[in-house]
């Protein structure tokens, strides 16, 4: 029989180290940066949900990481270089065929310059 000392991992909700409350206007700013419209009536609800997530995340702040190198790739691998050769063919028509709006080989968007 294997006996293991129980240790609380899931039983408790995460302790709040520091309450990182986020204000509604800050959510609106973030949404603008992310180019996502939020229905005005839903901003409060979105703010509450994101505050819950940020509170959970905030326990990271309690850890001393002063000498730790950030890890971007789990294998600490760096991108490989390849020979500078043309390997792709031009498939403009195939790509344009799946676009929402095209004309004369161009992608159409609302008028930008008056």
């Amino acid at each position, binding site marked *: *029989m*294997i006996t*293991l000392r*129980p*240790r*609380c*991992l*899931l*039983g408790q909700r*995460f302790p709040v180290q520091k309450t990182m409350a*986020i204000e509604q206007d800050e959510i609106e700013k*973030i*949404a*603008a*940066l*992310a*180019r*996502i*419209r*939020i*229905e005005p009536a839903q901003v409060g609800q*979105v703010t509450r*949900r*994101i505050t*819950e*997530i*940020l509170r*959970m*995340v*905030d*326990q*990271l*702040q309690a*850890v001393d*990481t002063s000498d*730790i*190198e*950030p*890890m*971007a*790739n*789990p*294998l600490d*691998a760096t*991108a*490989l270089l*390849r020979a500078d050769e043309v390997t792709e063919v031009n*498939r403009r028509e*195939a*790509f344009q*065929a*799946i*676009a*929402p*709006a095209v004309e004369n080989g161009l*992608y159409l*968007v*609302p*008028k*930008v310059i008056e």
Partner: protein
Amino acid sequence: MYDKTVAQLSAGLQAGQFSSVELTRSFLARIAALDGVYNSFISVAGEQALAAAAAADERIAAGTAGPLTGIPLAHKDIFCTDGLRTSCGSRMLDNFVPPYDATLISRFKRDGAVTLGKTNMDEFAMGSSNESSYYGAARNPWDTGAVPGGSSGGSAAAVAALLAPAATGTDTGGSIRQPAAFCGITGLKPTYGRVSRLGMVAFASSLDQAGPMAHTAEDCAWLLNSMAGHDPRDATSAPRAGEDYRAGLEDSLKGLRIGLPREYFGDGLDAATGACIQQALRELEALGATLVEVSLPHSHLTIPTYYVIAPAEASTNLSRYDGVRYGYRCDNPSDLLDLYTRTREEGFGEEVKRRILVGTYALSAGYYDAYYKKAQQIRRLIKQDFMDCFAQVDLLAGPTTPGPAFPLGAKTDDPVAMYLEDIYTLAVNLAGLPGMSVPAGMVEGKPVGMQLIGQHFGEARLLNVGHRFQQATDWHLRRPANLAVEVA
């Protein structure tokens, strides 16, 4: 014909007991008859599948077939398939028909496998229950009132319901292993970089990895043989050749040292699930393995670390959906900004938008160091915990999930509770390690999975342990009720 492993089907095809067209027709008929209940497929290939099956039969007749030639497979709807809609479970890509194949799909085509269709999934692979899919939740074949797990829930449900002999999935934080556990099948998340990500819709690029889902570890080895290997078109693909993952399946487990992370057996683990895992560990001991208690001291930081890194990378990756080049576009945009913001409001679901906002916040000026850099530093500590364990043991074992599949709707109103579902699986992605779930018991009529965690590029050893375990147990042979419908 439909309740056989890939290995058995391959033998039947080679021996001429049935053709790939017959086999493919049988699975397509089962999907048509039964998937109204399970909702495990978003798109079914139909004619394309039968054409591929006919081509496979020609290869078999000509003697040029490989092990997977003529085998029907289901692919998660995250892999681009040339000429077959790839929605990623999102309204944003509901109309997206890719003009190219993902490398994984090309490799299966090269080897003659047949694509049955594309499976249901949480939107952009963000979820642990399949409930965030634009196409509605898939159902767990063991209990259609329960979730199949996620995000690769459709793939797991399709295999468990015998609608496909095997499937592919992707795993960013547990999305192969957790649904495999909930649906009573075997699922392997390979080492980060082992399988090409080209043509796999990106969620979190430093975590995403594709892998096989099947009834047995042996079948997972067969599929991984096709999937694994360096892809020069994916800059994060590991520059090393694939290997024959079938070669070492029968190796003895004598002398194998298995570490049991004490943090994975704590209060949060459902008692009956824990008892199943203890019993499974005794099986491994009986097969010659030695069990050693180990510790992953930073485990409690896994969820917060993941929920900075994954949303940050997602917010960057999903910035490409702009309503201009492909995918959904809102009606009558008044200007360019309105086009972007309304397309993204209408095209993305709630959880995806939530994660984009969290990620944008974590990467925004003034918060980058406090969130993203901090999480990357703690990610290194989490990986180091595993490396310290592997100085003492060959692999780790524990539960895949805290309990069996939960009821539909139980956690949809509480995102943080949903995130806790992945408590035992997330760290494996943060550390880039291979992890596998194998059926290891039943609780209240629902399957339980045991997770095995290997060293980097140690997939062969995991598959070996899974295979030996499955030779000694019959959990992988259990089937849900009501599946034995003979379809004409």
